[in-house]
């Protein structure tokens, strides 16, 4: 890992300070980068299922039935080699040949806001540079069609990560209400398209003299934001947000929860050319009443994610759509006095499907209590390198930060080779 401030590898300092011998457990880091390049990138878009709050790995994708930390849920067989998952994810269990699990993600950041930033950017929060949302970078690198929808759309909740060092036009567009996605995009009541045209020309005229007197890039940014907003309001692609155009059978596939509906919306948006759609399932922060709450959330996740994978695969678009399900961290194996679990960063899970990801694998192993990684740790950077690689984006590509510092798409990390099909 390199220091984000000064691009000096932390490892170098450790080596200098303490001798390489003290850190003999990191040989993997010293291996030359393995060539995954023979396998072509397959994914063209990402659907990120964001589990806000940090789901309990032991109650979802890394169950330890019978262990004192295991909780009350049973584990069921899956089509993933040698792996079981929670009994409350029955559909995902059956789809296991398409899904792979990473069970040994880990970080050192137990705070929601900063960990969410880390799992959206692969970087720690740093007050000297803003990193772009994963989707902003994907949109920038893979391109966005002219006059189409924005390259990155987040549905349901604000990830509070923006376009970072990229230009503002790559910022994620937030759709706040799943039930009313076009709230700000549909013409406001009492304003028809002619009136909007009148207003637009009044505004252009009004802005002329100010722009003449103030030569400042931010003035141009402001105008650009308005131009883009207006073209969105007038876009012919807005029907992609309307899931009622889908037949009943398809809608049923995703379940009736807002999360399920948003998953269906995400599929439609990706088909319309959006590069990354983030859908949030919130409320995983189960410090109290973990088991009842997790069970209810798993019902929504199982239907939404299961429906999405089913639907994508029968439409033949799963191979080019990468589905990633993760949260900002996991939860403690120890159950607290409120029957809850607290924040845990030493081992947590991500589930991946499609986009050229090899299905049916469980990468990494935790110990019997789920308290430690015992095999194949996967860093956040490793996961991001894998995602970018699947999209054909070079993770070592350099950009320039707002303050002129060179900065890579991902700093360090190795692709998780097993996952690349």
């Amino acid at each position, binding site marked *: 890992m390199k220091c984000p401030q000064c691009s000096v590898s932390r490892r170098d300092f450790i080596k200098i300070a303490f001798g390489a011998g003290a850190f003999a457990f990191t040989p993997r880091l010293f291996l030359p980068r393995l060539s995954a390049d023979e396998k072509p990138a397959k994914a063209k878009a990402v659907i990120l299922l964001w589990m806000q709050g940090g789901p309990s790995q032991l109650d979802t994708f890394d169950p330890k039935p019978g262990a004192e930390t295991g909780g009350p849920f049973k584990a069921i067989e899956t089509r993933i080699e040698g792996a079981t998952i929670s009994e409350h994810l029955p559909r995902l269990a059956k789809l296991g040949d398409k899904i792979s699990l990473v069970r040994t993600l880990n970080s050192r950041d137990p705070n929601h806001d900063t960990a969410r930033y880390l799992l959206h950017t692969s970087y720690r929060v740093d*007050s*000297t540079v803003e990193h772009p949302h994963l989707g902003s970078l994907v949109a920038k690198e893979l391109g966005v069609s002219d006059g189409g929808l*924005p390259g990155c759309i987040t549905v349901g909740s604000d990830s*509070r990560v*923006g376009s970072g060092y990229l230009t503002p036009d790559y910022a994620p567009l937030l759709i706040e209400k799943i039930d009313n996605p076009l709230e*700000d995009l549909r013409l406001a009541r009492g304003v028809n398209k002619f009136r909007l045209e009148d207003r637009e020309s009044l505004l252009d005229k*009004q802005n002329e003299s100010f722009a003449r007197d103030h030569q400042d890039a931010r003035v141009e940014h402001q105008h650009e934001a308005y131009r883009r*907003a207006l073209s969105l309001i007038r876009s012919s692609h807005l029907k992609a947000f309307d899931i009622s155009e889908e037949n009943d059978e398809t809608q049923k596939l995703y379940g009736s929860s807002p999360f399920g509906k948003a998953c269906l919306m995400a599929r439609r948006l990706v088909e319309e050319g959006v590069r990354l759609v983030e859908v949030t399932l919130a409320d995983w922060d189960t410090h109290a009443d973990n088991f009842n709450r997790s069970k209810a959330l798993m019902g929504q996740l199982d239907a939404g994610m299961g429906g999405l994978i089913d639907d994508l695969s029968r439409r033949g678009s799963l191979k080019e759509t990468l589905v990633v399900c993760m949260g900002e961290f996991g939860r403690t194996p120890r159950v607290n006095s409120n029957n809850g679990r607290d924040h845990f960063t030493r081992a947590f899970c991500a589930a991946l499907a499609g986009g050229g990801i090899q299905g049916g694998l469980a990468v990494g192993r935790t110990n019997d209590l789920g308290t430690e990684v015992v095999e194949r740790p996967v860093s956040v950077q490793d996961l991001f390198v894998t995602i970018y690689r699947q999209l054909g984006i070079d993770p070592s590509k350099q950009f320039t930060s707002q303050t002129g510092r060179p900065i890579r798409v991902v700093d360090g990390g190795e692709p998780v080779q097993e996952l690349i099909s």
Partner: protein
Amino acid sequence: MRRAILAVLLLLTLTAFGEEPRPNPIDAYLDAYWERNRITPSPAASDHELLRRMTFDVLGRPPKPDEVRGFEKSKDREKKIDELLASDEAAEYFADTWMRTLLNYRFDETAPARMSFPAFRSYLKKVYADDVSYKGFVSQILAETGDYTKKPAVNWVLVTLDPKEPPYELASRATRIFLGRQMQCARCHDHPHEKISQVAVWGMTAFFSGAKAKSRTTFDGFSIKLLDEPAQKVKIPDTETSVEPRFLDGRKPSSLESPRRSFADFVVTSPQFPRAIVNRVWAHFMGRGFVEPLDRFTEMSQPTHPELLATLSDEFVRDGTSLRKLARTILRSRAYQLSSKTVPGAPQTAHACMALKPQDPIQLLNTLKWTLELDVFLKGFYETFIGNKALPESYRNEAVFGVYLQMYAAALLAPTGSAPEEQRYTGTVRLALKLMNSNDLQNLVKAEWGRLKEILAKSASPEDRLTEIFYTLLGRPPSSEERDRYLSYIEKKHEKNAAYEDIYWTLLNSTELAFNH
């Protein structure tokens, strides 16, 4: 001889004015700087431009039409500056700004349970109202002990303290905010470009090792107390090394009895202490710091105007570290009072014209509150917030609600994960959509609502109405060209009310409104 007489005369003239014998150090410096670099600064700002600017910078809101008209008559800039600085609203804006600087970064859903927002906000207001020295204010924030409502300065340490982690964040935040220096790099390794070693960072952290929060439930409620216990050694993560409290420069404190007090003394006596705050205040008013970003003072950093930074810092210390006096000096300077019209060829760092300042989240909220009577609109929301029994007690108060609103506004301005006090407007589509097209706000741009309704009721003359709309939204009368354009628009439109709504909408969405210029 003639020179001596002149000097005496000058002295006499100056002392005749009594309290203000010093010439403005900013003028003295920048006048010479401009001349040396052959820069012709922008002309002086008009009264309208200046009043709007000062009202935004000091009160955090746009000026109201009667204030604009009052200033048109009096034109007394110095009197206005003193009036603004002495007002209650200035204290409110000061409190909100420091809440943002100190807290937001760590704001999460558990924050309201770990501190008292109302007590801390009232404390900050009082700091401003009493013109408490900056030195005293920072000492209190860092070293105060006691109950979180009776000694409200403890709240910053309380909320920044993470019981599960070594108190690195406190040391790092304090160094960043109060000394303008970054320790992040050296968290993991010796800093390559600076003389901050990893041991020094964890040595600074160790000063907070004695900060302990004790919460208890008493018969009259819940209370949290912050203690300053003797310091302990702190282990550097991933190493076997433990370090004792040590200052950034490697010195050891003379006593370890009240380590936070020693830390505070180190901070407020550091030569970097006045420089960091002068830079921050300068950036607030002038739109650009001497050192940018504000927390990037290093051994090698090159301030844009080192001499002026030094002069202002010295004066700040001589004035007993009064933030209000510093603000007054800047507000009274010629550079602050220049027009924002771009001077071709002059770099931004020359301060040859006023920089454009995007509205901060507090200013944006206040703008919406004033122009759209958002207060009234939010009242229902506010009542469900305060009255929502499902929320813990600590959430249900105005101060927390205010912070939520600010976070919302901040996300509209620039969704970002970086330190919110430095969030800059990046022209987001989301804000544009909200302002021009959301039903939420469009329902408030109506002839039957709020400010516009009042304006239409007051006069029937299109010209009066138009003028009042301009005063309300932009703090100035329309230019003759604007007047003609809009009057003919009104004339042409069948639905007169709709025409006024369109004009109101236009100014609300204009670039001029988006910036404090």
